[in-house]
Every structure is written in structure tokens, then in C-alpha cells.
């Protein structure tokens, strides 16, 4: 279904579990709600399922009002389904009985019911287990039963509540692909709640990142990973270096790191009155080369290796920048400690995060940012600083660096 959520709030006692959440989920898409414990994602599920009634806001599904303050259409009348964290299988029912349950209570005729149950069981590869009870199944099989039960009634929306968290690590990996494929094959809309960023990145068309009951950012997996808008988003989506940069007082649109490397330039109106910003550089976006090697132009500087750990696929290398700040990089080579190397930043378009320093937070009402759910909050300014001549795609990072504009002042400090 097309799901519309308008500035939803949920409070109990003095706790605000969910504040001012809006979203619009188009038919057939899979969205992930991502966030740590206590971020409000379970509350959101409860509200969507009709297990909770909002204290403010509305939920609409297929043009039908599902929830408004103090009222929720009962779960059984919402045409949704849910895959629970613990699967919530009924121990007194066989696989076939469990999967048939939604059809039985909907009074679907016997023949149709049997056909549909068989079809769904086949799609989750459980047709041979129809007569088994839950305790006779493995963890992965139980999960597939839960998925089959959620799909059998052709629900307009499938809610998934951390469906992988009870599976062991290896099973989780294979089920990730399988689950996404099954959901897409059935063509249902789905909302997938998880605290695992990898799951969210792998499964979702769009990710809704939440923290402390609020939406932090909404966007495609690429948006969230490459263009996070807050420090929280940066940290939650994966390991990152955040290097402090300051606006160049002489040249608009140019930023300087603490060790003198310049990042520039932008066509957008520079927002440098904010003062300091943070330059996001993920460890895999850092290339190291020997000091002696010829380093082409680009964002490059020299740093000293302080530590390194072999992790199989790569070396995790800790470096010290000229100004004493730390840097982490992934490298195919194991550098020796104390060695001086040349660091090159791979992204063609450095991503800056403008987040006020502690104590500088503005007190503007949060609502302002939520008029447009896609838009950034007033405190969450971001700017993309483009390297004007750098090609956007189709060339390697090295090439891009090589073709960096002459006026780039990126040098070793």
C-alpha cells in the first residue's frame, strides 16, 4: 500500500517515544527503519500495526485513515502483517496451520487457501515441512515460516521487526538476500525495522535513520552512507574519520584542514559563517602510498603510521596527521610503524558536515524542519563542495586525482 504518516507522536507518561515523524512509503518499496535501542523504531512499528494509538499525528493507508490521536483501527482490520523478532510462531500449530491462519480467519475458501499456502511455502522453500511443529524446525526455517505467514494473505504492508536478530551470523548473511528477494517477488510494500546498518543497506530502497524518537535522516542507502547529515548518521552508518576544517578567510568556498590541506571549491552559496565543519573521510576512502612514490595532484598530504592491524581483507592502519590528529585507513599493504606515507583522499566530492559545536545549538522549533521531511533541519546544514573539474564517474580515483585542477593547493604540509 502507499503508506502516509503525518507528524506522528507517541508519549507515555513523561516519555516521548516518538516525536513528529512523517514518511510516505510508495507501493512496492522496501524501507528500512534504522536506529539504536530506544530510538523509537519499535514504537513506530506498534503504531503502524495498530497496537498503539498515537498521541498526535495520523496514519493513512491506501487513502484510508488508520490512526489518529487516541484512536487506532484494530490490527486485524489493517490488512498488514508482521514478522516478529522471535518469529512468534504458535507452538500448537503445524507450519501449514500457522501459514493458513490469516486465510482461515479471513474465511478464504478451503481450496483457495490450500493453493495459496502451498504457493507461499514453495516460495520460502518449506513445502516439505508443512506438517512440522515449530519446535521441530531450525532457526532459519522458523523465520521462513514467519515470513510465509506474513505474506500469505497478500497484505498491503509487511512490517518486519528485527527479523534477523535471532539468527546466527552466517545464517543472517544468506537470509538477507533471500528475504529481500522474496519480498520483491511478492511485490509487497515492507517496512523493515533493524538496528543493523548492513541489513538496512542491503535490503532497503530507502532508509529512515532514527535516534531518540526522532527521524535523523531519510534517503537511499547511498545517501545515508556517503552523504550523512549529522555526526550521529556518520557514526551509525560505519567507521569514519571526521577531520575538522575551517573556512578559508580569503577565498569563499574553500576550506582548510588543521594541517593546511585545502578543499574547494563550490558553486553553491558558501555557508562559511558557521565556522568549523567536519570533513567525512571513511577509512576505505583513504589511499596510502610510499613517500618516495610519485604522487599526482589531488588532496594529498603526508602522515606517519602509528599502528596497524591485519584484518584479512585489508590492513587497518592508524596514522598521525601533521597536526597531530588521528586518521584511519584501509590499506592492502602493511606499512611499518613509524613509516611516513603519502595520504590521498579518494572522493572527488568531499562531504562536509556542519554540526554546531556543543553549546551552539539553536533553539528553533524542531517542527520547522519537518515541514519538508526530506529537508535538512536548520541546525543540520550541509554543503557539497565540488571539485569543479573533477569527472563525476567512469574514471578511477587515481585518474580523478591526476586531473585535479591546477589551483588545488593540496600539498604535503
Amino acid at each position, binding site marked *: 500500500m502507499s503508506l502516509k504518516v503525518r507528524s506522528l507522536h507517541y508519549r507515555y507518561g513523561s516519555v516521548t517515544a516518538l516525536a513528529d515523524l512523517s514518511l510516505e512509503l510508495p507501493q512496492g518499496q522496501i524501507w528500512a527503519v534504522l536506529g539504536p*535501542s530506544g530510538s523509537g523504531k519499535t514504537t513506530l512499528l506498534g503504531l503502524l*500495526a495498530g497496537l498503539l494509538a498515537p498521541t498526535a499525528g495520523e496514519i493513512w493507508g491506501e487513502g484510508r485513515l488508520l490512526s489518529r490521536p487516541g484512536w487506532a483501527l484494530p490490527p486485524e482490520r489493517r490488512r498488514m502483517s508482521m514478522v516478529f523478532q*522471535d518469529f512468534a510462531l504458535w507452538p500448537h500449530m503445524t507450519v501449514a496451520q500457522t501459514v493458513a491462519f490469516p486465510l482461515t480467519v479471513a474465511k478464504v475458501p478451503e481450496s483457495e487457501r490450500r493453493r495459496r499456502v502451498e504457493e507461499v511455502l514453495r516460495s520460502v522453500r518449506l513445502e516439505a515441512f508443512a506438517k512440522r511443529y515449530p519446535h521441530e524446525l531450525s*532457526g532459519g526455517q522458523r523465520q521462513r515460516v514467519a515470513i510465509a*505467514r506474513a505474506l500469505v*494473505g497478500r497484505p498491503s504492508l509487511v512490517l518486519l521487526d528485527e527479523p534477523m*536478530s535471532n539468527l546466527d551470523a552466517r545464517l543472517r548473511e544468506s537470509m538477507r538476500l533471500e528475504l529481500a528477494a522474496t519480498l520483491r517477488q511478492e511485490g509487497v510494500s515492507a517496512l523493515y525495522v533493524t538496528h543493523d546498518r548492513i541489513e538496512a543497506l542491503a535490503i532497503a530502497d530507502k532508509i529512515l535513520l532514527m535516534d531518540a524518537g526522532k527521524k535523523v535522516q531519510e534517503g537511499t542507502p547511498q545517501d545515508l552512507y556517503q552523504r550523512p547529515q549529522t555526526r550521529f548518521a556518520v557514526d551509525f552508518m560505519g567507521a569514519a574519520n571526521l577531520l575538522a576544517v575551517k573556512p578559508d578567510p580569503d577565498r569563499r568556498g574553500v576550506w582548510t584542514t588543521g594541517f593546511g590541506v585545502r578543499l574547494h571549491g563550490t558553486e553553491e552559496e558558501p555557508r562559511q559563517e558557521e565556522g568549523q565543519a567536519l570533513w567525512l573521510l571513511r577509512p576505505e576512502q583513504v589511499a596510502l602510498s610510499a613517500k618516495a612514490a610519485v604522487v599526482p595532484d589531488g588532496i594529498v598530504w603526508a602522515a606517519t603510521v602509528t599502528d596497524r592491524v591485519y584484518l584479512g581483507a585489508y590492513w587497518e592502519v592508524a596514522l598521525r596527521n601533521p597536526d597531530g590528529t588521528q586518521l584511519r585507513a584501509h590499506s592492502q599493504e602493511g606499512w611499518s610503524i613509524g613509516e611516513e606515507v603519502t595520504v590521498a583522499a579518494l572522493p572527488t566530492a568531499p562531504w562536509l558536515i556542519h554540526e554546531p559545536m556543543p553549546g551552539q545549538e539553536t533553539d528553533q522549533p524542531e517542527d520547522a524542519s519537518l515541514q519538508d521531511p526530506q529537508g535538512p533541519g536548520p541546525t543540520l546544514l550541509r554543503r557539497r563542495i565540488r571539485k569543479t573539474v573533477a569527472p563525476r564517474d567512469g574514471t578511477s580515483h587515481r585518474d580523478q586525482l591526476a586531473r585535479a585542477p591546477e589551483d588545488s593547493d593540496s600539498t604535503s604540509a
Partner: protein
Amino acid sequence: MIGPRFLTPDPKSAGQADLGAEPGPSPARPSLLGRGFAWIGRLAVGGPIATTAAVVLVVLPLCAILFQSALPGLFGVPPSLRLSGAGFGAMAADPYALQSGLDSLLLGLATAVLATALGALVAWLLTVSDLPARRLYAGAVWAVFLAPTFLIGQGWSLLLGPGGLAGTFAGGALLSPVGVMIVLSLKLFPFATFTVQSGLEGLGDEVIQAGRISGARSGTVWRRLLIPLLVPALTAGGLIVFAEVLSDFGVAATLAQSANFPLTTYAIYTALESFPTNFSEAAAMSVMLVALVMLVQIGQRRAVGRRGFATRWGGHKPLAPRLLGRFRHLAGVGLGLLFVLALGVPAVATLWSSISIHVGAGFNLSNLTTAFYQAAINVPYGMSAFALSLVLAAVAASLTLMLGVLQSFSWRRSSGALGRVVDVILTTSIAVPGIVLGAGYIFLWNQPWLAAIGLGLYGTTVLLVLGYIATGLPYAVRLASGAMAQLPEGQISAARMGGASTRTVLGRIVVPQLAPTWLRIWLLVFAGAVFELPMSMLLYPPGQPTAAVAILHQFHSMQIGTGAALTVLATLGLGAVVLVLSGLLARLTRSVHLDQSLGGRL
């Protein structure tokens, strides 16, 4: 409908491990093979001691009954191995025995139904509702559970019996099989409450959520999901109540007697005590009773053990509390009324009988007297019987605790066949009616040749203490082993690797953590033994009646006021002792969770 509990802050909290990747959970029994406990080998001698005790205290008497029923001449002089069906024949030809058997069965069935309904309702209110003062009511359930049946039965007899309080206006209408059934249901419903409570606690809220999101209305959720899922708990509760009714002697010897409603346990007692004694018929009845009770127990185990019902299935979130709305206080009052009926009425009836000259004469000063209390203190077998009971119970509780602890050490160590045998013996012996065990003790120990070799325990307080140990041992072993099993092995290993000797580990790690449980076991066995009735009736030494025997004797010789006064004094006395000891316990451990630690047993 859904409260804040739905919003567990950490969705990855406990319970998650229930559904691992391995097929099928293996619930209930923790691994007893812990290597961390191998060092306890030095205490392995405890295993054989406890095993021997279980065999002597439980298995031999049961064998004696079996032999007595089929080989009536075995214990005669000279012994004869002639097989005879005379015992069973006598039983079949004895209308009293048959009637009592039928009565017991019907009473058991009817009580099981009523008590289970009551117990389930109480469990629902206590576990899943927003009823006010739930902790208080939960404590009251335990009080009902622990109250001796014969005191309850006696209290109701005083109220309903001839010349009783209600007899004057209600015409003793309740002094009937139906009345007995109601009184027993009021006394035994806690068994069903406990099983249904644990059943409800085993259900995750997602069971209901999954049903509703699948499109089921709340009626369908009840019919298709909740009730089927609670059937094992309801069945188990009903079967336990049924077995308890069959085994009960306290009500059979008091209220049922007053109502002329013969029950099997009392028939066994009569066969043993009347002259001429009819040992083989008593043995035959005992065999039938034990067989029936064991069948019930097997049924109960199967009910609980089916399809992995023992683990929490629906998810890790407990059932969300259901709001009672405006019925909240009504339900509270109703539940309060239930406890008034279950405990208050018999207590008040007993108290009133002990202070009024004419029980039916109403409350006025001229009708009050302290004469019965003076009599209770002065009668030859009054307070001295209570004192004797205190001593015997203390001795029995100490020995039982010792055996239980020894057994718990060796149980942890081995999962061998011997351990399982002891486990089976002890779990089944919970179900053996006290009157039957007492009969077995008579058959076993009332043999002239034993006296000749210095083992003439029959007619001594020693045998009585052994009997009390036999009734307490199953609980002691269960509780002690349960506590031991909960002690993480890592704790022991850590101490060992830190260089601690066995003695240090015991003294610094094991004992401090288990001592509170041990003290509670002692209290439980002690309090149970002070008012123990069936064994005491059969085994008390001549001239040395115990508290329960002395009280019942007063009633049977129509010294109603004196009996009631004695009951009040003994109850208060025991209450004071238990209070002082548990206060001491609380000070020692700074935490009294009596109900919690005992909760594991059902």
C-alpha cells in the same frame, strides 16, 4: 490494551536465546555435567547417602504396601509367601471402601474443575491484569497454599457442623459433598494458579499480536490461540488438584467426616486403626490409590512436556497487562472475598469457637470466655504435644535439609542413572499420599524381628521423624538442586583458577549464595511438619501425640472449645517461630524472596 510494556527499551534483552539456530529448544533441565563442579567429587558421598535415604524412606515402605496387599502373610509370624487376593477381595466386598473410592474419584473430578477455574481466574488477574494490590494477593495465594488442610477443614466443620455457627441458621446445608468440594476448591486452587501463571508467563505478547495482525479478532485469538496454548497449564493444574484431593487426609478426617462423606484416605486410616485391623485391605486400597495418583502424575507430566511448551514461545515480551477499567476495583473486591472464604472464614470460625461459650449465641460479652484457653494450656496432651511437634519438626527439617543439600551437590556432578533414579523416586513420592506412606511405615517397621535386632522403630518418635523427612525430602531436593543449578559454573571455575581451595570455594562462593535458599527449605519443611496430620495419626508413639493429633483428639472427644483454643495457640506459636526465624533470615541475607525461591517448584 497495550501498555508501556510493549515498549521494552532494549529489544535485544533476555529471552532472545530461547530460539537459537539449533532445531528445537531443549528446555527446563540445565546441564548437570558441568566440569566446573567436578571438584565436588569429594562430596560425592552425599549422593549415596541421599539415595539410600530415598530408598529407605520412600521405596521400601511402598514395596511393603505392595507386598502386604498381595502376600498378606509375608510380615506374619512365621512369614508366608502365599499369594493371596484377599486384600483386594475384601476391598471389593467392602461397601465402605467402594463408596469411599467412588466418592474420592467424583470429589476429585469436581474439585479439579472448580479449583482450576478459580485458579486460572486468579492467575489471569495476578499475571496479566492491572488489578490493584497484586503483590498482596500473590502473598495470599501462598498463604492458602501453605495452610494445613486439616485446619481449614476443621474451621469449616466448626462453622457448618452440628451446633456450629452456621448450623443454627443455614441448617448445615453446606455440610455435604458439595460443601466439601467447595472447601477443597478454595484450599487447592493455588496449584492451578501456579501452573496457569507459569503458562501465562511462558506466552509472549507477540502470540496475541501475531494473531491480531493476521486478522483475528480478540474472540478468535482467545479461541484459536490463547486457550489452546494454556491447555497444558490448565490440564496440569487440574490433574495436580485431582491428585491432591485423592491424597488429602486433612479435610477427609474433619469436614468430610462431619458430613458423613467417606473418602479413601480416611477409609485406609479406618482399616488400619479399627479393631480388628485389616492390613491387607488397607494395603490394597493404598495400592489402588497410589496407582491412580501416579497415573495422574504421568498425565500431568505429559501435558506439560508436549511440543516444547515449556519454553516461552510467543516472543520475549511478556503479555501486556490487560486493563480492567471500571471492573478493576470490583475484581479486587471479588478476589479479596475469595481469600476471606478460603482463609478468613475457617480462621474466624476457629477463633470464635475458642472464645465463645455458645458458638451460636452471638457476639456479647456474657458469651465470651477464656476458659477454653486455660483448658488448652492445662490438658495433659495440649501444649506439650505442640512442644513435641516443634522439636520433631526441627529435627526433621535439619536432617531433610542436610540430605537435600548433599543430594544437590551430587546431582550437579552426575547425570548418571543413579541420579535419575533418585529423581524419579523423589518426584513420584511427592504424589504418594501421607496416609499411604504412613501405612507403609507400619507394615515395614511393625515387625517383631526388627525389635529383636534393635530396630524396633515402630511406636517411637524416630519413625515419626523419618516420616516427616520422607514428606519433606522431595521438596528439599528440588529446591536445593534448583538453586545449585542456577549457580553459574563460571563462578566456581573463576574461583578455582584464582587459586581457591575446595573449602574456600564452598565457604566463600557456594554457601553464601545458597544459604538463604537452604534456610527457606528448613522453614518450609519445619512449618509443614509441625501440623503434619496423616503420618502423625498413624505413627505417633503412645502417650506422645503431636500437635495435629492432639487438636483432632480434642475435637473428636467433643472438646470443641478446647480444641479450637489449642489450634489458635499452636497456630500463633508456629507463626511466631516462623516470623522470628524468617526475620533472622532476612537480616542474614538482607533479602527475603520466599515466594520466588519456592516458585520454582511447580
